[in-house]
């Protein structure tokens, strides 16, 4: 029987993660697919998952009544989507919508949080990887705020 281990090992977010931890993570994972235009989550909903994008493109959006939906960022092959599952009160801060057909692995946030509490080495590994992604996205958001191409 084919399991998701193979996809997890291949994903850049879990690169060089030990096999014992992959085994723990695979128990919280599911293969998912989103059609173009489909919402993956919406602002204010419970953030009970995060996603390892295998193929496709997802826009992280914010909705403004005056301007409609505004895309703040896109993530695609090899990226991760969502970290609100890590931080109380575990609610999504933005919308996420598939821009094109997107295949991903969904990781159950609660399941993974429990495993991280039981195994601090796993928890530290996951936190280190998320800290790196958060730092990158914070840098990008700051650059976007600068509006560097303006006059």
């Amino acid at each position, binding site marked *: 029987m084919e399991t998701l281990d193979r996809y997890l090992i291949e994903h850049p977010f879990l690169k060089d993660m030990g096999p014992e931890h992959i085994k723990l993570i695979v128990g919280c994972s599911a293969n998912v697919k989103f059609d173009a235009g489909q919402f993956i989550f919406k602002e204010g909903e419970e953030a009970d998952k995060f996603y390892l994008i295998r193929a496709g493109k997802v826009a992280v959006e914010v909705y403004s009544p005056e301007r409609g939906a505004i895309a703040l960022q896109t993530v695609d092959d090899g990226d991760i989507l969502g970290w609100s599952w890590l931080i109380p009160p575990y609610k999504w801060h933005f919308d996420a919508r598939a821009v094109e057909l997107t295949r991903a692995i969904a990781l159950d946030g609660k399941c993974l949080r429990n495993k991280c509490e039981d195994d601090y080495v796993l928890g530290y590994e996951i936190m280190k990887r998320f800290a790196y992604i958060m730092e990158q996205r914070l840098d*990008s958001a700051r650059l976007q705020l600068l509006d560097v191409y303006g006059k």
Partner: protein
Amino acid sequence: MVTQPFKVLRAKSETYDTFTVELAPIGNGTQFKFLPGQFNMLYVFGVGEVPISISGDPEKPAKLIHTIRTVGAATRAMQKLKIGDAIGVRGPYGTPWPVEKSVGHDVIIIAGGIGLAPLRPSIYHLLSNRNKYGKVILLYGTRTPDDILYKRELEKWRSRFDFDVYITVDRAAVAWRGNVGVVTTLIPKAQFNISNTIAMICGPEIMMRYTVQELNKRGLSYNQIYVSMERNMRCGVGLCGHCQYGPNFICKDGAVFSYESIKDWFLKREL
């Protein structure tokens, strides 16, 4: 060098504040030879003279092409030029992009906003000598989808199998189906041979700063990275001193520099 009169053959709006003009010499010769990355001093009679990069194909010297963004009196006057109007041209000046040094290498071109214009001649050169180079990649970032330059040409380039083109915008409405995020976010996705790659970057200085950092994080050394600098250029030949940058004059020793050669000056705020 003496300013030569040129006439406007064609003018085309690219975005709300950027336009492209095609020029041909009046009188002296029919060709304007230049190297990718060089610039001209363009003079609107009675208004002023400004340095503008050449954005046309170096292998088609019959037409001199400039893409210009309106930022001041001279460029606003240029925007009003009509077919047949005259403009003064002095040049070409400056150092070229390292297209010869890049032979046998992968080439990654990173452009931000109007920075695509000075890089377009090197793209033409790389594509017309495609078999001399490894992978050729363009990463292009702009403010919004409406600010994208050379839309038709980008579409054509994207359809080529031997040219990887990635475009991103800083913000977009949902109708945009491309990437959203700053241009540096494209760098981790680009596939190139780190030890055998030359990077050419042009855009706002702050964008180039973060781009150099990101390329360095990927493993590129500073002598593999080339940037195009911009300062207040007046004479174009290193005499007036307006564009002094550390021990260099941007107009004469640049505008294209290897990052290695200017790294000590790049973060100096006083320059």
